[in-house]
Protein backbone atom coordinates (compact mmCIF):
# COMPACT_ATOMS: atom_id res chain seq x y z
CA UNK A 1 0.00 0.00 0.00
CA UNK A 2 2.85 2.27 0.85
CA UNK A 3 4.44 1.74 -2.53
CA UNK A 4 1.20 2.92 -4.17
CA UNK A 5 1.95 6.36 -2.77
CA UNK A 6 5.72 6.19 -2.59
CA UNK A 7 6.40 5.09 -6.14
CA UNK A 8 4.61 7.95 -7.97
CA UNK A 9 6.00 10.41 -5.46
CA UNK A 10 9.54 9.19 -6.04
CA UNK A 11 8.97 9.18 -9.79
CA UNK A 12 7.81 12.79 -9.66
CA UNK A 13 10.75 13.77 -7.50
CA UNK A 14 13.19 12.07 -9.86
CA UNK A 15 11.62 13.76 -12.89
CA UNK A 16 11.85 17.17 -11.27
CA UNK A 17 15.42 16.46 -10.32
CA UNK A 18 16.35 15.54 -13.89
CA UNK A 19 14.56 18.60 -15.28
CA UNK A 20 16.42 20.80 -12.83
CA UNK A 21 19.67 19.16 -13.82
CA UNK A 22 19.28 19.31 -17.58
CA UNK A 23 16.97 22.27 -18.26
CA UNK A 24 19.81 24.84 -18.36
CA UNK A 25 21.65 22.76 -20.88
CA UNK A 26 18.51 22.23 -22.97
CA UNK A 27 17.89 25.99 -23.04
CA UNK A 28 21.45 26.60 -24.22
CA UNK A 29 21.15 23.95 -26.89
CA UNK A 30 17.91 25.46 -28.21
CA UNK A 31 19.26 29.01 -28.19
CA UNK A 32 22.35 27.95 -30.08
CA UNK A 33 20.12 27.49 -33.13
CA UNK A 34 19.00 31.13 -33.04
CA UNK A 35 19.43 33.00 -36.29
CA UNK A 36 22.35 35.42 -36.61
CA UNK A 37 23.99 37.76 -36.49
CA UNK A 38 21.03 39.87 -35.33
CA UNK A 39 19.45 37.17 -33.10
CA UNK A 40 20.47 37.33 -29.45
CA UNK A 41 20.66 34.90 -26.55
CA UNK A 42 17.00 35.12 -25.66
CA UNK A 43 13.58 33.73 -26.56
CA UNK A 44 11.67 33.69 -28.78
CA UNK A 45 13.65 31.99 -31.53
CA UNK A 46 13.35 34.41 -34.44
CA UNK A 47 14.29 31.80 -36.96
CA UNK A 48 15.99 28.39 -36.65
CA UNK A 49 19.43 28.32 -38.21
CA UNK A 50 22.92 26.92 -37.82
CA UNK A 51 24.45 30.38 -38.23
CA UNK A 52 26.31 30.40 -34.93
CA UNK A 53 27.92 27.03 -35.63
CA UNK A 54 29.19 28.38 -38.93
CA UNK A 55 30.31 31.50 -37.13
CA UNK A 56 32.28 29.38 -34.71
CA UNK A 57 34.31 27.80 -37.49
CA UNK A 58 34.72 31.09 -39.37
CA UNK A 59 32.37 30.01 -42.16
CA UNK A 60 29.84 32.81 -41.65
CA UNK A 61 30.22 36.09 -43.57
CA UNK A 62 32.04 38.78 -41.56
CA UNK A 63 29.79 40.69 -39.18
CA UNK A 64 30.04 42.97 -36.15
CA UNK A 65 30.24 39.91 -33.86
CA UNK A 66 33.86 38.97 -33.34
CA UNK A 67 34.78 35.28 -33.61
CA UNK A 68 35.23 33.44 -30.30
CA UNK A 69 38.90 33.50 -29.25
CA UNK A 70 38.96 29.84 -28.38
CA UNK A 71 41.25 28.14 -30.90
CA UNK A 72 44.45 28.32 -28.90
CA UNK A 73 42.82 28.12 -25.49
CA UNK A 74 41.09 24.91 -26.53
CA UNK A 75 44.45 23.44 -27.46
CA UNK A 76 45.95 24.62 -24.19
CA UNK A 77 43.12 23.14 -22.11
CA UNK A 78 43.31 19.82 -23.92
CA UNK A 79 47.07 19.62 -23.46
CA UNK A 80 46.83 20.64 -19.84
CA UNK A 81 44.05 18.11 -19.15
CA UNK A 82 46.06 15.37 -20.85
CA UNK A 83 49.23 16.15 -18.89
CA UNK A 84 47.24 16.35 -15.67
CA UNK A 85 45.50 13.05 -16.42
CA UNK A 86 48.78 11.20 -16.95
CA UNK A 87 50.58 12.62 -13.92
CA UNK A 88 47.62 12.37 -11.52
CA UNK A 89 46.79 8.82 -12.54
CA UNK A 90 50.39 7.65 -12.21
CA UNK A 91 50.67 9.34 -8.81
CA UNK A 92 47.24 8.02 -7.78
CA UNK A 93 48.10 4.42 -8.65
CA UNK A 94 51.49 4.64 -6.98
CA UNK A 95 50.26 6.20 -3.76
CA UNK A 96 47.25 3.86 -3.52
CA UNK A 97 49.67 0.96 -3.98
CA UNK A 98 51.74 2.37 -1.10
CA UNK A 99 48.64 2.55 1.09
CA UNK A 100 48.00 -1.18 0.68
CA UNK A 101 50.39 -1.80 3.52
CA UNK A 102 50.36 0.23 6.68
CA UNK A 103 53.30 2.55 7.11
CA UNK A 104 54.33 5.10 9.69
CA UNK A 105 52.41 8.34 9.29
CA UNK A 106 50.04 6.87 6.72
CA UNK A 107 47.09 8.61 8.37
CA UNK A 108 48.64 12.04 8.02
CA UNK A 109 49.77 11.40 4.46
CA UNK A 110 46.23 10.31 3.57
CA UNK A 111 44.72 13.58 4.78
CA UNK A 112 47.47 15.62 3.15
CA UNK A 113 46.66 14.06 -0.21
CA UNK A 114 42.90 14.41 0.18
CA UNK A 115 43.30 18.02 1.28
CA UNK A 116 44.09 18.90 -2.34
CA UNK A 117 40.47 18.40 -3.32
CA UNK A 118 39.01 19.96 -0.17
CA UNK A 119 40.63 23.39 0.00
CA UNK A 120 38.81 26.22 -1.84
CA UNK A 121 40.21 26.64 -5.35
CA UNK A 122 40.27 30.44 -5.32
CA UNK A 123 42.43 30.47 -2.21
CA UNK A 124 44.88 27.93 -3.58
CA UNK A 125 45.04 29.80 -6.89
CA UNK A 126 45.64 33.10 -5.18
CA UNK A 127 48.21 31.54 -2.88
CA UNK A 128 50.06 30.05 -5.82
CA UNK A 129 50.08 33.43 -7.57
CA UNK A 130 51.54 35.11 -4.47
CA UNK A 131 54.18 32.43 -3.98
CA UNK A 132 55.15 32.62 -7.65
CA UNK A 133 55.49 36.38 -7.46
CA UNK A 134 57.49 36.16 -4.27
CA UNK A 135 60.00 33.79 -5.82
CA UNK A 136 59.94 35.57 -9.15
CA UNK A 137 58.56 32.58 -11.04
CA UNK A 138 56.60 33.28 -14.23
CA UNK A 139 53.07 31.99 -14.15
CA UNK A 140 52.04 29.77 -17.08
CA UNK A 141 49.27 27.33 -17.75
CA UNK A 142 51.87 24.60 -18.20
CA UNK A 143 53.76 25.33 -14.99
CA UNK A 144 52.00 26.90 -12.01
CA UNK A 145 48.47 26.06 -13.20
CA UNK A 146 49.57 22.54 -14.09
CA UNK A 147 50.88 21.97 -10.59
CA UNK A 148 47.58 23.12 -9.11
CA UNK A 149 45.60 20.89 -11.49
CA UNK A 150 47.63 17.92 -10.36
CA UNK A 151 47.18 18.83 -6.69
CA UNK A 152 43.43 19.04 -7.31
CA UNK A 153 42.89 15.88 -9.43
CA UNK A 154 45.46 13.60 -7.79
CA UNK A 155 43.23 12.95 -4.71
CA UNK A 156 40.39 11.82 -6.97
CA UNK A 157 42.62 9.38 -8.81
CA UNK A 158 44.06 8.26 -5.48
CA UNK A 159 40.63 7.57 -3.92
CA UNK A 160 39.43 5.67 -6.98
CA UNK A 161 42.51 3.46 -6.90
CA UNK A 162 42.24 3.01 -3.14
CA UNK A 163 38.74 1.60 -3.60
CA UNK A 164 39.97 -0.70 -6.36
CA UNK A 165 42.87 -2.04 -4.29
CA UNK A 166 40.55 -2.51 -1.35
CA UNK A 167 38.77 -5.28 -3.24
CA UNK A 168 41.90 -6.68 -4.83
CA UNK A 169 42.79 -10.27 -3.98
CA UNK A 170 46.41 -10.15 -2.88
CA UNK A 171 46.92 -13.90 -3.17
CA UNK A 172 47.20 -13.57 -6.97
CA UNK A 173 50.31 -11.45 -6.49
CA UNK A 174 51.67 -13.80 -3.85
CA UNK A 175 51.18 -16.68 -6.24
CA UNK A 176 53.21 -14.83 -8.85
CA UNK A 177 56.06 -14.13 -6.43
CA UNK A 178 56.11 -17.77 -5.40
CA UNK A 179 56.66 -18.69 -9.06
CA UNK A 180 59.93 -16.73 -8.95
CA UNK A 181 58.58 -13.54 -10.53
CA UNK A 182 59.90 -10.31 -9.04
CA UNK A 183 57.45 -7.88 -7.41
CA UNK A 184 58.06 -5.26 -10.13
CA UNK A 185 57.29 -7.68 -12.95
CA UNK A 186 54.34 -9.07 -10.99
CA UNK A 187 52.89 -5.58 -10.83
CA UNK A 188 53.25 -5.15 -14.58
CA UNK A 189 52.03 -8.60 -15.58
CA UNK A 190 49.39 -9.37 -12.96
CA UNK A 191 48.36 -6.41 -10.84
CA UNK A 192 48.10 -3.77 -13.55
CA UNK A 193 45.94 -5.76 -15.99
CA UNK A 194 43.57 -6.55 -13.12
CA UNK A 195 43.24 -2.98 -11.83
CA UNK A 196 42.98 -1.47 -15.32
CA UNK A 197 39.24 -0.64 -15.07
CA UNK A 198 40.05 1.48 -12.02
CA UNK A 199 42.92 3.18 -13.82
CA UNK A 200 40.51 4.11 -16.63
CA UNK A 201 38.12 5.69 -14.13
CA UNK A 202 40.92 7.60 -12.48
CA UNK A 203 42.03 8.92 -15.89
CA UNK A 204 38.51 10.04 -16.75
CA UNK A 205 38.17 11.87 -13.44
CA UNK A 206 41.50 13.64 -13.79
CA UNK A 207 40.88 14.67 -17.41
CA UNK A 208 37.38 16.07 -16.99
CA UNK A 209 38.15 17.83 -13.71
CA UNK A 210 41.20 19.51 -15.20
CA UNK A 211 39.50 20.35 -18.51
CA UNK A 212 36.90 22.65 -16.94
CA UNK A 213 38.86 23.80 -13.88
CA UNK A 214 38.28 27.52 -13.41
CA UNK A 215 39.02 28.97 -9.99
CA UNK A 216 42.52 27.56 -9.50
CA UNK A 217 43.50 28.39 -13.06
CA UNK A 218 42.20 31.96 -12.84
CA UNK A 219 45.09 33.25 -10.76
CA UNK A 220 47.75 30.71 -11.59
CA UNK A 221 47.76 30.48 -15.36
CA UNK A 222 49.36 33.78 -16.26
CA UNK A 223 48.67 35.56 -19.53
CA UNK A 224 47.72 32.65 -21.82
CA UNK A 225 44.16 31.60 -21.07
CA UNK A 226 42.73 28.12 -20.84
CA UNK A 227 39.32 27.38 -22.35
CA UNK A 228 37.10 28.08 -19.31
CA UNK A 229 38.91 31.39 -18.77
CA UNK A 230 38.64 32.36 -22.44
CA UNK A 231 34.91 31.69 -22.47
CA UNK A 232 34.44 33.62 -19.26
CA UNK A 233 36.32 36.48 -20.87
CA UNK A 234 33.81 36.72 -23.72
CA UNK A 235 30.96 37.16 -21.20
CA UNK A 236 32.48 40.43 -20.07
CA UNK A 237 31.65 42.16 -23.36
CA UNK A 238 28.43 40.85 -24.80
CA UNK A 239 26.96 37.36 -24.94
CA UNK A 240 26.10 35.93 -28.34
CA UNK A 241 24.67 32.49 -29.06
CA UNK A 242 28.03 31.39 -30.48
CA UNK A 243 29.07 30.61 -26.90
CA UNK A 244 26.07 28.31 -26.66
CA UNK A 245 26.95 26.63 -29.91
CA UNK A 246 30.41 26.01 -28.55
CA UNK A 247 28.90 24.66 -25.32
CA UNK A 248 26.89 22.14 -27.29
CA UNK A 249 29.99 21.01 -29.17
CA UNK A 250 32.12 20.54 -26.05
CA UNK A 251 29.31 18.62 -24.42
CA UNK A 252 29.17 16.32 -27.43
CA UNK A 253 32.93 15.90 -27.06
CA UNK A 254 32.47 14.95 -23.42
CA UNK A 255 29.85 12.40 -24.39
CA UNK A 256 32.25 10.94 -26.94
CA UNK A 257 34.85 10.68 -24.18
CA UNK A 258 32.32 8.94 -21.93
CA UNK A 259 31.44 6.61 -24.82
CA UNK A 260 35.06 5.55 -25.22
CA UNK A 261 35.26 5.08 -21.46
CA UNK A 262 32.09 2.95 -21.46
CA UNK A 263 33.40 0.72 -24.23
CA UNK A 264 36.77 0.17 -22.55
CA UNK A 265 35.03 -0.35 -19.22
CA UNK A 266 32.57 -2.92 -20.49
CA UNK A 267 35.47 -4.87 -21.98
CA UNK A 268 37.23 -4.89 -18.62
CA UNK A 269 34.06 -5.54 -16.64
CA UNK A 270 33.32 -8.57 -18.76
CA UNK A 271 36.66 -9.85 -17.61
CA UNK A 272 35.92 -8.85 -14.03
CA UNK A 273 32.69 -10.83 -14.18
CA UNK A 274 34.70 -13.85 -15.20
CA UNK A 275 36.85 -13.33 -12.14
CA UNK A 276 33.73 -13.19 -10.00
CA UNK A 277 32.53 -16.47 -11.47
CA UNK A 278 35.88 -18.01 -10.82
CA UNK A 279 35.76 -17.07 -7.16
CA UNK A 280 32.37 -18.62 -6.53
Amino acid at each position, binding site marked *: MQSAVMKPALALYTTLFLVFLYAPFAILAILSFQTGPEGGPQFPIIEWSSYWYQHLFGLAPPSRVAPLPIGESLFRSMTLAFMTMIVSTVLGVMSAQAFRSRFKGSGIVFYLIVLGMMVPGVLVGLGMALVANFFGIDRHWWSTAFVLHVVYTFPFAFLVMLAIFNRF*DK*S*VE*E*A*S*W*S*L*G*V*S*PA*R*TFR*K*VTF*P*LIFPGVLSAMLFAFTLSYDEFSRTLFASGRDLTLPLAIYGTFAVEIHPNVFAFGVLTTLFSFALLGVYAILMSLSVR*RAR*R*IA*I*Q*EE
Partner: protein
Amino acid sequence: MQPLLTLNGIERRYGDVAALDGVSFSVAPGAYVALLGPSGSGKTTLLRVIAGFEQPDAGHVVFDGRRIRDIPTHRRGIGIVFQNFALFPHLTVEKNVSFGLLNRESETNMDRRAIDAKVRDMIALVGLKGLESRDMHQISGGQRQRVALARTLVTEPRLVLLDEPLGALDANLRARMRDELRSLHDRLGVTFLHVTGSEAEALAMGDTIIVLDRGRIAQVDLAESIYNHPASPQVARLLNCYNLFEGAVEGREFVSSVGRFPLDGARAPGRPGKASAYAIRHDRIAVRPVDRPISPDEAGLAATFVASEYSGSSVLSFFATAGGQVIEVEDHLSLREPPNYAQKQGYALAWEPRDALVFA
Protein backbone atom coordinates in the same frame (compact mmCIF):
# COMPACT_ATOMS: atom_id res chain seq x y z
CA MET B 1 70.31 -36.88 5.42
CA GLN B 2 70.19 -33.10 5.79
CA PRO B 3 66.64 -31.84 6.10
CA LEU B 4 65.37 -29.63 3.27
CA LEU B 5 63.43 -27.37 5.57
CA THR B 6 63.94 -26.70 9.25
CA LEU B 7 61.85 -24.43 11.43
CA ASN B 8 63.41 -23.31 14.66
CA GLY B 9 61.27 -21.78 17.38
CA ILE B 10 59.05 -19.80 15.01
CA GLU B 11 56.86 -17.24 16.74
CA ARG B 12 54.31 -14.97 15.15
CA ARG B 13 52.04 -12.66 17.12
CA TYR B 14 49.10 -10.53 16.12
CA GLY B 15 48.73 -8.08 18.97
CA ASP B 16 48.41 -10.22 22.09
CA VAL B 17 47.46 -13.38 20.23
CA ALA B 18 50.22 -15.80 19.39
CA ALA B 19 49.37 -17.42 16.06
CA LEU B 20 52.60 -19.41 16.21
CA ASP B 21 54.20 -20.09 19.55
CA GLY B 22 57.60 -21.69 19.18
CA VAL B 23 57.08 -24.01 16.25
CA SER B 24 60.02 -26.28 15.38
CA PHE B 25 60.15 -29.19 12.96
CA SER B 26 62.04 -30.33 9.92
CA VAL B 27 61.09 -31.84 6.59
CA ALA B 28 63.31 -34.36 4.77
CA PRO B 29 63.87 -33.92 1.03
CA GLY B 30 61.33 -35.81 -1.05
CA ALA B 31 58.92 -36.33 1.84
CA TYR B 32 55.18 -35.87 1.79
CA VAL B 33 54.41 -34.15 5.06
CA ALA B 34 50.86 -33.42 6.17
CA LEU B 35 50.34 -30.56 8.58
CA LEU B 36 47.10 -31.17 10.45
CA GLY B 37 45.42 -28.52 12.52
CA PRO B 38 41.94 -27.23 13.30
CA SER B 39 41.01 -23.82 11.98
CA GLY B 40 42.72 -21.16 14.03
CA SER B 41 45.66 -23.39 14.89
CA GLY B 42 48.04 -21.18 12.91
CA LYS B 43 48.65 -23.49 9.99
CA THR B 44 48.07 -20.89 7.28
CA THR B 45 50.28 -18.40 9.14
CA LEU B 46 52.98 -21.05 9.25
CA LEU B 47 52.82 -21.52 5.46
CA ARG B 48 52.93 -17.77 4.92
CA VAL B 49 56.05 -17.55 7.06
CA ILE B 50 57.74 -20.35 5.12
CA ALA B 51 56.75 -18.80 1.78
CA GLY B 52 58.04 -15.41 2.89
CA PHE B 53 54.76 -13.48 2.82
CA GLU B 54 55.19 -12.80 6.52
CA GLN B 55 58.19 -12.52 8.79
CA PRO B 56 58.32 -14.44 12.08
CA ASP B 57 58.68 -12.37 15.23
CA ALA B 58 61.20 -14.86 16.55
CA GLY B 59 62.91 -18.02 15.39
CA HIS B 60 64.26 -18.78 11.95
CA VAL B 61 63.53 -20.81 8.88
CA VAL B 62 66.38 -22.77 7.32
CA PHE B 63 65.80 -23.90 3.76
CA ASP B 64 68.36 -25.94 1.88
CA GLY B 65 71.01 -25.14 4.47
CA ARG B 66 70.49 -21.35 4.47
CA ARG B 67 68.57 -19.04 6.77
CA ILE B 68 66.03 -17.40 4.51
CA ARG B 69 64.77 -14.56 6.63
CA ASP B 70 66.08 -11.87 4.29
CA ILE B 71 65.42 -13.71 1.04
CA PRO B 72 62.26 -12.42 -0.67
CA THR B 73 59.59 -14.89 -1.80
CA HIS B 74 60.57 -14.86 -5.46
CA ARG B 75 64.13 -15.94 -4.72
CA ARG B 76 63.26 -18.72 -2.27
CA GLY B 77 62.37 -21.45 -4.72
CA ILE B 78 59.35 -22.46 -2.68
CA GLY B 79 56.08 -22.95 -4.54
CA ILE B 80 52.67 -22.53 -3.00
CA VAL B 81 49.23 -23.73 -4.07
CA PHE B 82 46.51 -21.61 -2.51
CA GLN B 83 43.21 -22.81 -1.17
CA ASN B 84 41.36 -20.43 -3.51
CA PHE B 85 43.86 -21.35 -6.29
CA ALA B 86 44.69 -17.64 -6.93
CA LEU B 87 44.90 -18.25 -10.68
CA PHE B 88 45.57 -15.34 -13.02
CA PRO B 89 42.04 -14.57 -14.24
CA HIS B 90 43.22 -12.57 -17.25
CA LEU B 91 45.25 -15.44 -18.71
CA THR B 92 44.38 -18.73 -20.39
CA VAL B 93 45.21 -22.16 -18.99
CA GLU B 94 48.42 -22.34 -21.01
CA LYS B 95 49.51 -18.81 -20.12
CA ASN B 96 48.83 -19.48 -16.44
CA VAL B 97 51.08 -22.53 -16.56
CA SER B 98 53.85 -20.86 -18.56
CA PHE B 99 53.70 -17.65 -16.50
CA GLY B 100 56.41 -18.58 -14.02
CA LEU B 101 58.88 -19.86 -16.62
CA LEU B 102 58.41 -16.83 -18.86
CA ASN B 103 58.55 -14.16 -16.18
CA ARG B 104 60.78 -15.40 -13.43
CA GLU B 105 63.91 -13.58 -12.52
CA SER B 106 66.38 -16.45 -12.66
CA GLU B 107 67.17 -18.67 -15.65
CA THR B 108 66.10 -16.13 -18.21
CA ASN B 109 68.34 -18.00 -20.63
CA MET B 110 65.84 -20.83 -21.06
CA ASP B 111 64.71 -20.58 -24.67
CA ARG B 112 61.13 -20.30 -25.76
CA ARG B 113 60.98 -23.71 -27.40
CA ALA B 114 62.18 -25.48 -24.25
CA ILE B 115 59.60 -23.59 -22.20
CA ASP B 116 56.80 -24.52 -24.58
CA ALA B 117 57.78 -28.17 -24.46
CA LYS B 118 57.93 -28.14 -20.67
CA VAL B 119 54.55 -26.44 -20.38
CA ARG B 120 53.04 -28.92 -22.81
CA ASP B 121 54.38 -31.85 -20.81
CA MET B 122 53.10 -30.42 -17.53
CA ILE B 123 49.64 -29.75 -18.98
CA ALA B 124 49.53 -33.33 -20.19
CA LEU B 125 50.76 -34.63 -16.84
CA VAL B 126 47.93 -33.00 -14.89
CA GLY B 127 45.38 -34.01 -17.53
CA LEU B 128 44.48 -30.63 -19.00
CA LYS B 129 45.26 -31.48 -22.63
CA GLY B 130 42.80 -29.82 -24.98
CA LEU B 131 41.96 -27.02 -22.54
CA GLU B 132 45.09 -24.91 -23.20
CA SER B 133 43.27 -21.91 -24.65
CA ARG B 134 40.38 -21.87 -22.16
CA ASP B 135 39.88 -18.92 -19.84
CA MET B 136 39.70 -19.45 -16.09
CA HIS B 137 35.92 -19.05 -16.07
CA GLN B 138 35.51 -21.74 -18.70
CA ILE B 139 36.88 -24.61 -16.63
CA SER B 140 35.57 -26.51 -13.63
CA GLY B 141 36.78 -26.43 -10.03
CA GLY B 142 38.82 -29.60 -10.39
CA GLN B 143 40.43 -28.31 -13.56
CA ARG B 144 41.33 -25.06 -11.82
CA GLN B 145 42.96 -27.08 -9.07
CA ARG B 146 45.07 -28.80 -11.73
CA VAL B 147 46.04 -25.48 -13.32
CA ALA B 148 47.13 -24.22 -9.90
CA LEU B 149 49.22 -27.34 -9.37
CA ALA B 150 50.70 -27.34 -12.86
CA ARG B 151 51.55 -23.65 -12.65
CA THR B 152 53.57 -24.28 -9.49
CA LEU B 153 55.12 -27.65 -10.39
CA VAL B 154 56.37 -26.54 -13.83
CA THR B 155 58.76 -24.08 -12.18
CA GLU B 156 60.33 -27.04 -10.33
CA PRO B 157 60.40 -25.66 -6.81
CA ARG B 158 62.34 -27.70 -4.26
CA LEU B 159 59.41 -27.50 -1.87
CA VAL B 160 55.70 -27.17 -2.62
CA LEU B 161 53.38 -25.78 0.05
CA LEU B 162 49.78 -26.86 -0.35
CA ASP B 163 47.32 -24.74 1.62
CA GLU B 164 44.18 -26.86 2.05
CA PRO B 165 44.37 -27.59 -1.67
CA LEU B 166 41.33 -29.84 -1.68
CA GLY B 167 39.14 -27.72 0.55
CA ALA B 168 37.35 -26.01 -2.33
CA LEU B 169 36.46 -29.25 -4.13
CA ASP B 170 33.42 -31.47 -3.68
CA ALA B 171 33.73 -34.83 -1.98
CA ASN B 172 34.30 -37.24 -4.85
CA LEU B 173 36.63 -34.88 -6.67
CA ARG B 174 38.56 -34.50 -3.43
CA ALA B 175 39.13 -38.24 -3.23
CA ARG B 176 40.38 -38.35 -6.82
CA MET B 177 42.66 -35.33 -6.44
CA ARG B 178 44.13 -36.97 -3.32
CA ASP B 179 45.33 -39.88 -5.40
CA GLU B 180 46.60 -37.59 -8.12
CA LEU B 181 48.51 -35.40 -5.70
CA ARG B 182 50.13 -38.46 -4.21
CA SER B 183 51.15 -39.86 -7.60
CA LEU B 184 52.42 -36.46 -8.82
CA HIS B 185 54.56 -36.31 -5.72
CA ASP B 186 55.95 -39.78 -6.26
CA ARG B 187 56.63 -39.16 -9.95
CA LEU B 188 58.30 -35.76 -9.61
CA GLY B 189 60.17 -36.38 -6.38
CA VAL B 190 59.33 -32.91 -5.07
CA THR B 191 58.91 -32.29 -1.35
CA PHE B 192 55.31 -31.53 -0.38
CA LEU B 193 54.07 -29.82 2.76
CA HIS B 194 50.33 -30.28 2.72
CA VAL B 195 48.26 -28.26 5.17
CA THR B 196 44.81 -29.55 6.01
CA GLY B 197 42.12 -29.40 8.63
CA SER B 198 40.82 -32.85 7.74
CA GLU B 199 42.21 -35.77 9.74
CA ALA B 200 41.19 -38.22 6.99
CA GLU B 201 43.12 -36.22 4.39
CA ALA B 202 46.19 -35.94 6.62
CA LEU B 203 46.19 -39.67 7.42
CA ALA B 204 45.69 -40.63 3.77
CA MET B 205 48.28 -38.26 2.30
CA GLY B 206 51.15 -37.79 4.65
CA ASP B 207 54.16 -40.05 5.21
CA THR B 208 54.70 -37.93 8.26
CA ILE B 209 52.03 -35.97 10.06
CA ILE B 210 52.66 -32.82 12.04
CA VAL B 211 49.79 -31.90 14.34
CA LEU B 212 49.49 -28.21 15.10
CA ASP B 213 47.31 -27.06 17.97
CA ARG B 214 46.89 -23.44 19.05
CA GLY B 215 50.18 -22.37 17.52
CA ARG B 216 52.23 -25.22 18.95
CA ILE B 217 53.34 -28.56 17.60
CA ALA B 218 51.25 -31.19 19.39
CA GLN B 219 52.81 -34.25 17.76
CA VAL B 220 55.07 -35.27 14.88
CA ASP B 221 54.87 -38.89 13.83
CA LEU B 222 54.05 -41.41 11.12
CA ALA B 223 50.41 -41.54 10.12
CA GLU B 224 49.78 -44.92 11.73
CA SER B 225 51.40 -43.99 15.02
CA ILE B 226 49.43 -40.80 15.26
CA TYR B 227 46.20 -42.64 14.73
CA ASN B 228 46.91 -45.40 17.25
CA HIS B 229 48.91 -43.42 19.76
CA PRO B 230 47.91 -39.76 19.86
CA ALA B 231 50.30 -37.95 22.16
CA SER B 232 47.74 -35.79 23.90
CA PRO B 233 43.99 -35.46 24.42
CA GLN B 234 44.05 -32.53 21.94
CA VAL B 235 45.48 -34.72 19.23
CA ALA B 236 43.01 -37.48 20.06
CA ARG B 237 40.14 -35.02 19.81
CA LEU B 238 41.43 -33.71 16.50
CA LEU B 239 41.62 -37.21 15.05
CA ASN B 240 37.89 -37.46 15.55
CA CYS B 241 37.92 -41.17 16.34
CA TYR B 242 38.26 -41.22 20.13
CA ASN B 243 35.83 -40.83 23.02
CA LEU B 244 37.51 -38.76 25.70
CA PHE B 245 36.82 -38.75 29.43
CA GLU B 246 38.34 -36.40 31.95
CA GLY B 247 39.27 -37.62 35.38
CA ALA B 248 42.19 -38.90 37.40
CA VAL B 249 44.08 -42.10 38.04
CA GLU B 250 43.42 -43.66 41.43
CA GLY B 251 45.30 -46.83 42.17
CA ARG B 252 44.55 -49.27 39.35
CA GLU B 253 41.53 -47.37 38.15
CA PHE B 254 40.71 -44.30 36.16
CA VAL B 255 38.01 -42.29 37.87
CA SER B 256 35.85 -40.11 35.69
CA SER B 257 32.48 -38.44 36.04
CA VAL B 258 30.83 -41.28 34.09
CA GLY B 259 32.35 -44.14 36.06
CA ARG B 260 35.50 -45.97 37.14
CA PHE B 261 37.47 -47.80 34.47
CA PRO B 262 40.01 -50.50 35.42
CA LEU B 263 43.46 -49.86 33.97
CA ASP B 264 45.49 -52.36 32.03
CA GLY B 265 48.29 -53.56 34.34
CA ALA B 266 51.00 -53.64 31.70
CA ARG B 267 50.90 -49.93 30.87
CA ALA B 268 49.46 -47.37 33.15
CA PRO B 269 50.81 -43.91 32.40
CA GLY B 270 49.66 -40.95 34.34
CA ARG B 271 50.58 -40.25 37.90
CA PRO B 272 48.04 -41.22 40.52
CA GLY B 273 45.77 -38.48 41.71
CA LYS B 274 46.73 -36.11 38.90
CA ALA B 275 44.09 -34.89 36.52
CA SER B 276 44.35 -36.65 33.20
CA ALA B 277 42.29 -37.92 30.31
CA TYR B 278 41.17 -41.33 29.14
CA ALA B 279 40.50 -42.18 25.51
CA ILE B 280 38.84 -45.12 23.80
CA ARG B 281 38.52 -45.44 20.05
CA HIS B 282 35.06 -45.40 18.49
CA ASP B 283 35.53 -48.81 16.91
CA ARG B 284 36.82 -50.57 20.03
CA ILE B 285 33.55 -50.42 21.93
CA ALA B 286 31.14 -53.32 22.06
CA VAL B 287 27.45 -52.60 22.52
CA ARG B 288 25.47 -55.11 24.59
CA PRO B 289 22.01 -55.28 26.08
CA VAL B 290 21.90 -54.09 29.70
CA ASP B 291 21.17 -57.58 31.00
CA ARG B 292 24.72 -58.66 30.07
CA PRO B 293 26.69 -56.60 32.59
CA ILE B 294 30.27 -55.53 32.29
CA SER B 295 32.67 -58.09 33.72
CA PRO B 296 35.38 -57.03 36.22
CA ASP B 297 38.20 -57.33 33.68
CA GLU B 298 36.38 -55.08 31.26
CA ALA B 299 35.85 -51.34 31.26
CA GLY B 300 32.48 -49.93 30.41
CA LEU B 301 29.48 -47.82 31.20
CA ALA B 302 25.76 -47.70 30.71
CA ALA B 303 24.29 -45.36 28.14
CA THR B 304 21.14 -44.67 26.16
CA PHE B 305 21.01 -44.92 22.39
CA VAL B 306 20.30 -41.60 20.68
CA ALA B 307 20.81 -41.89 16.93
CA SER B 308 23.07 -43.36 14.29
CA GLU B 309 24.68 -42.17 11.11
CA TYR B 310 25.17 -44.47 8.13
CA SER B 311 28.26 -43.80 6.03
CA GLY B 312 28.40 -46.78 3.67
CA SER B 313 31.20 -48.88 5.06
CA SER B 314 30.43 -48.20 8.69
CA VAL B 315 27.77 -46.92 11.04
CA LEU B 316 28.45 -44.35 13.71
CA SER B 317 26.06 -44.62 16.68
CA PHE B 318 25.59 -42.00 19.35
CA PHE B 319 24.88 -42.92 22.99
CA ALA B 320 24.29 -40.59 25.89
CA THR B 321 25.36 -41.23 29.48
CA ALA B 322 23.15 -40.25 32.41
CA GLY B 323 25.29 -37.12 32.77
CA GLY B 324 24.66 -36.17 29.15
CA GLN B 325 28.08 -36.96 27.69
CA VAL B 326 27.85 -38.34 24.16
CA ILE B 327 29.70 -41.58 23.42
CA GLU B 328 30.32 -42.49 19.79
CA VAL B 329 30.54 -46.11 18.68
CA GLU B 330 31.64 -47.11 15.20
CA ASP B 331 30.62 -50.44 13.66
CA HIS B 332 32.57 -51.45 10.57
CA LEU B 333 30.07 -53.30 8.44
CA SER B 334 32.70 -55.71 7.13
CA LEU B 335 33.26 -56.96 10.69
CA ARG B 336 29.87 -56.72 12.32
CA GLU B 337 26.25 -56.94 11.33
CA PRO B 338 24.63 -53.55 10.89
CA PRO B 339 23.48 -52.62 14.37
CA ASN B 340 19.83 -52.21 15.13
CA TYR B 341 19.60 -50.29 18.36
CA ALA B 342 16.30 -49.19 19.83
CA GLN B 343 15.68 -45.52 20.42
CA LYS B 344 15.99 -44.37 24.06
CA GLN B 345 16.89 -47.91 25.10
CA GLY B 346 19.66 -48.47 27.64
CA TYR B 347 22.76 -50.43 26.57
CA ALA B 348 25.99 -51.55 28.14
CA LEU B 349 29.06 -50.20 26.35
CA ALA B 350 32.11 -52.33 27.06
CA TRP B 351 35.76 -52.37 25.95
CA GLU B 352 39.04 -54.02 26.80
CA PRO B 353 41.17 -51.96 29.20
CA ARG B 354 44.23 -52.54 27.01
CA ASP B 355 42.56 -50.74 24.09
CA ALA B 356 42.22 -47.56 26.11
CA LEU B 357 44.75 -44.74 26.26
CA VAL B 358 45.44 -42.75 29.40
CA PHE B 359 47.04 -39.34 29.09
CA ALA B 360 49.08 -37.80 31.85
